[in-house]
């Protein structure tokens, strides 16, 4: 199955569908994994009733949310209220199409793939703002303001970190970046770009509104912030968008810093093996951080982004450029 650029729209459609289904399952079971892992860290069991060891829990959640009443509070702006979760989900999930899962499987091999993913993550702020605005409620309004400011600030740091990788690989194309890593003496860009990796991971936590940067949706303060007025399947869409964002950011980190799908030895029959292993490692890191750390206050969050991460990323960029020039 050799799928490159535009050969056979049917093949593209079929592979897109397969990718969508696989990623949806991954995201759904990511919620299950998160609940189980956090529970074990907190010395309790986590979901274990639905199906053996609670395996069917995500399916039960989805079924429950689907059959709930679709509530439109009286004072909301109906069309925008309906569209906002869709925008969030589409922007979060579309990035998955560009990630090279395997040497010969990338759904859309854009020449400016990295730039496209960054643009999509900027667009996701749009979904947040629209939902906060349309909800016509004070809590949602405050949450949307905070979330959009946070997303925009940490995008700068993330882009600067990724630029260092682009400098080393010489291209925005994600396939080329992975190939450059395989050819480089270090095999992964993690080792020379450890600082950029750190900045990227922290910014990714902030982009996806995860602890310790989850103030916009902090339960104990703003009662779920910008999606407080949503219920039923729309709430599920926002939730999915957040986890999709986690998966896409982790996949991006795997591609740019950890060597993508390359591994020390070939596993027969499972070409995605190494990619999935690295992806799961990074997702575990996300979940681990959620169980451990408290939450940043909003102004501390912003000062961390602007005063710490961006200067560090800039410095890294200059050092990388200098070294690249010298050698």
């Amino acid at each position, binding site marked *: 199955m050799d799928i490159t650029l535009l050969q056979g729209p049917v093949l593209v459609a079929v592979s897109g569908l397969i990718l969508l289904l696989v990623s949806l399952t991954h995201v759904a079971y990511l919620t299950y994994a998160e609940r189980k892992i956090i529970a074990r860290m*907190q010395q309790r069991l986590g979901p274990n009733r639905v199906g053996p060891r609670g395996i069917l829990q995500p399916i039960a959640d989805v079924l429950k949310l689907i059959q709930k009443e679709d509530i439109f509070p009286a004072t909301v702006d109906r069309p925008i209220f309906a569209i906002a979760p869709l925008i969030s989900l589409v922007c979060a999930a579309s990035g998955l199409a560009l990630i090279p899962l395997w040497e010969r499987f990338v759904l859309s091999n854009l020449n400016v793939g990295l730039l496209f993913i960054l643009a999509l993550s900027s667009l996701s702020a749009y979904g947040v703002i629209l939902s906060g605005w349309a909800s016509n409620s004070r809590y949602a309004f405050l949450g949307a303001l905070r979330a959009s400011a946070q997303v925009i600030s940490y995008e700068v740091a993330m882009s600067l970190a990724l630029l260092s990788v682009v400098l080393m690989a010489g291209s925005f194309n994600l396939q080329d970046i992975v190939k450059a890593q395989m050819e480089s003496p270090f095999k992964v860009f993690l080792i020379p770009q450890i600082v950029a990796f750190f900045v990227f991971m922290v910014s990714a936590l902030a982009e996806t509104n995860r602890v310790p940067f989850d*103030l916009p949706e*902090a339960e*104990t303060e703003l009662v779920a912030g910008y999606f407080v007025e949503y219920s039923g399947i729309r709430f599920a869409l926002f939730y999915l968008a957040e986890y999709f964002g986690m998966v896409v950011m982790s996949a991006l980190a795997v591609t740019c810093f950890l060597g993508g799908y390359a591994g020390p030895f070939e596993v027969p029959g499972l070409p995605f093996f190494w990619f999935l292993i690295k992806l799961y490692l990074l997702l575990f890191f996300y979940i681990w951080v959620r169980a451990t750390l*408290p939450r940043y*206050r909003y102004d501390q969050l912003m000062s961390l982004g602007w005063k710490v991460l961006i200067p560090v990323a800039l410095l890294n960029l200059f050092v990388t450029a200098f070294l690249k020039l010298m050698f």
Partner: protein
Amino acid sequence: MSSSLIEVRPKRVNSDQYEEPFYLNLGPQHPSTHGVLRLVLELDGETIVGCDPRIGYLHRGVEKLAENLNYNQTIVLSDRLDYIASAANNTVFCLAFEKLFGLKVPRRARLLRTIVNEMARISSHLLWLATHALDIGAMTVFLYCFRERERLLNIFEEICGARLTHSYVRVGGVRQDFTQEAIESLKKFTEEFPQLILEYETLIDVNRIWLERTKGIAVVSAEEAINLGLTGPVLRGSGVPYDVRKFRPYDAYDEVEFEVPVGERGDVYDRYRVRMMEMRQSNRIIKQCLEKLPETEGEPIIAEDAPDLLIPERMREPEPKPHPKKGFIFTGREVFPVPPGEAFASIESPKGELAVYVVSDGTNKPWRLRIRTPSFVHISAIPSLAKGHLIADLIAIIGTLDVVLGDCDR
């Protein structure tokens, strides 16, 4: 309902501009305000310009009810005030009544009361730490603290049959003695507890996010704190070593050795350190009391002249006149079942200084029972503490004041 709407009054800035403040209602149902507390916040962006706490959502009329109940029956009401550390509420009621009746509590009962009070203090501080950390975002501390609290609640069930609302401390002493099992499990708990406190501290004590969220927030100077009426760990965090257990000792606190931790700056972090050290000191007190218990083996656990559960409405003094045939006849004059007068007692509850002022008119029901609760005073201090802070800090402030609405609204 007309009474619950907030009136928004626009201010005139100049001839053609009005300024309207932005009100946010941190309503009675909220995952983080501990109970049904309603805060009307006046915001300027994210900064709090004014704050108006509205309470009364949990008002059950305990003071009015107590005027219609027997003295011993009010102990059951007192459980439900600060329902997290109900032993403390029972103790303060009993101290006031014992002052009124002129009873002397036997030594074993005093030791048992001290043990139960300190267990309640540890249990309340564990709950405080769990909810405070959860509000600031560290979810795991919540579950670790509740693990220990479950052990304590099981020991409570062993002692008096109830996990939360004990009614264990009675007028004149305690309800029943500790069983040997309870003493054993308590001994094991006191041995393991200091290690477990270290477990909670490693998660948050030097975590820079925690330090940034709690250092420098809601700083109160010592004079300001006394003027605002703050007591308990909140006052001690500001440097004033006022602890009712040391200043006006009651029960067995003059027999045991313990220190009173005091903070320096009076911010949220100092109060957190004060409460963590208080937990260690409570553990120490329980250990010492358990060592002293075998000395009082066999002593009564309730005073001999303690009143019955239902004090009769009229009582005659037994003035025995031996009758040749019928034996003693009670032809005494009518006396008051309860000595008239008034009494004031206060204790160091885990939240602050809990005080009771009771006025008796001689009948078997109190004439006036006034309960001064620390949460009432602490919630009244929220506007002064929260001015100029952000909303996220407000949650930390409510957590550090350790308010329980059952205590506040009575």
